[in-house]
């Protein structure tokens, strides 16, 4: 699946991040291919979520977070002063840990991003909503209740609607911050199936605490520990014969 000749969509070099005076990331170099899933694994506090949120500049919402290093996203310097965060976040979609549909109907949730972009034509919206919900494998379950509140759906359905909401705006890169950790096993399985179907068309980065999940769905895996990137390689290498002892200990469950 992974092909070293594949084009790189995002390339980060020497990424440091400080919360106030505390350094949380100590220089991360990481490249992501144009298609496929990269999993970020590591114990709590290892900096994987922090790194993920730096990619679409979610740290901008907090004061006293400093980010340095270079982020080259398809030719765009993410942290350049001239970069428009609104435009950037349209190109880099994000799915959060907690299923979080807005308190509107399912339809309005999925159409939200397009409406922000100024799409008013109902036919275009209808088509995009249906396509996104089908991509997120939730269309059959919600097609009859499209105009009812999305908060009435189950947690797994809500999370897939959240995925559809992001897909509707056709992002180039999808960030997933522990998308299944608040869900039951069946719903988690549904989300994983959805992601597997999308991996031929999208570049995805997923933060996960579940090593079995990383091994099931990802093409490449990066192991974070205490704010450092320990190792990154094809998933089967990381899980079968990693180079570093820390990685071996973590994936075999000896610590963390």
């Amino acid at each position: 699946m992974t092909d070293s000749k594949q084009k790189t969509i995002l390339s980060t070099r020497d990424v440091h991040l400080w919360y106030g005076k505390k350094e949380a990331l100590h220089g991360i170099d990481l490249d992501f291919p144009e298609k496929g899933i990269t999993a970020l694994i590591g114990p709590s506090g290892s900096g994987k979520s922090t790194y993920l949120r730096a990619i679409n500049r979610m740290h901008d919402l907090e004061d006293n977070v400093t980010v340095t290093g270079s982020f080259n996203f398809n030719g765009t310097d993410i942290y350049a002063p001239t970069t428009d965060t609104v435009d950037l976040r349209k190109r880099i979609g994000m799915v959060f840990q907690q299923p979080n549909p807005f308190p509107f109907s399912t339809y309005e949730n999925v159409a939200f991003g397009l409406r922000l972009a100024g799409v008013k034509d109902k036919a275009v919206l209808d088509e995009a909503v249906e396509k996104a919900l089908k991509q997120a494998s939730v269309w059959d379950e919600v097609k009859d209740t499209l105009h009812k509140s999305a908060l009435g759906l189950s947690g797994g359905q809500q999370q897939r609607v959240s995925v559809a909401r992001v897909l509707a705006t056709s992002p180039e890169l999808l960030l997933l911050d522990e998308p299944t950790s608040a869900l039951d096993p069946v719903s988690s399985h549904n989300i994983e199936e959805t992601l597997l179907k999308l991996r031929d068309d999208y570049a995805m980065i997923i933060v996960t605490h579940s090593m079995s999940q990383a091994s099931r769905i990802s093409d490449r895996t990066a192991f974070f520990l205490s704010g450092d990137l320990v190792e990154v390689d094809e998933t089967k290498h990381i899980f079968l014969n990693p180079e570093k002892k820390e990685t071996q200990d973590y994936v075999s469950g000896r610590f963390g």
Partner: protein
Amino acid sequence: MDNITKKLMQRSESTRKDTFGRVVSLTALILIGVVVVAIFAFVLSRGLSTFFKDGVNVKDFLFGTTWNPSVTNPATKQPYVGALPMIIGSFLVTFLAAIVATPFAIGTALFMTEIAQKRGAKIMQPIIELLVGIPSVVYGFIGLTVVVPFIRTITSGSGFGILSGTIVLFVMILPTITSMTVDTLKSVPRYYRESALAIGATRWQMIYKVILRAATPGIMTAIVFGMARAFGEALAVQMVIGNAALMPTGLTTPASTLTSVLTMGIGNTVMGSLQNDVLWTLAMILLLMSLVFNLIVRAIGRRGAMK
């Protein structure tokens, strides 16, 4: 053995403390309940005697436009007790004040919660709390010495009237609506903000498409609370509204509200006379209206919880 039997038969120390606590709080509850029931019973009995004892027609009272309880209408052999001018006056100042105050309150609340959280918490919060605590007579006095002369210079009238009342009430209910709106906005989950921004919303789009929409039930509740305060306010309104029990013909002509007529008249009438009973009827309307405001708030809360 005897010792154990004794222990089992006796009530323990902690059970007794429990009972004591329950009795104390139950007593407090009953006391408050009795007071509320007594107030309702008293106001209703006095207020209704206008209709039952003095034989005033309910329709004449609610829709009559002439208020002069000491003069008898030769046609009906009943005093002039048409309360419509005051009812309209009360609703008019309440709604106008709410309409004017709401945009300012929402704007201030958004500034405090979304735009400048630190300055909002440090500067605006104490100011709003201060505004809530100012006694209404002070507002009325300022209204009388500042607002009324100002209105007088820009219009031809005396300056007393609905407009002055609206302005004073606007300032009085602004902090109420603002602080409740702030609480509502603060309770909008952070992940609504994050996911709206993450999908490419600008800050303003996030605010008006997601946050305000999620907060609508709470904001409605805040507005109704503000209206309840405006409706029941007596002193400040009475000082600036002109106290002429006439049908309002314009915003700058003297008018009156239920509360202003009550405070003006209650000391000048004899208990048990029709002139006194009819004031109780006005009080009854006030009481019923505050009940209605309460029900509206509860209805909004229930709908908000179901969404």
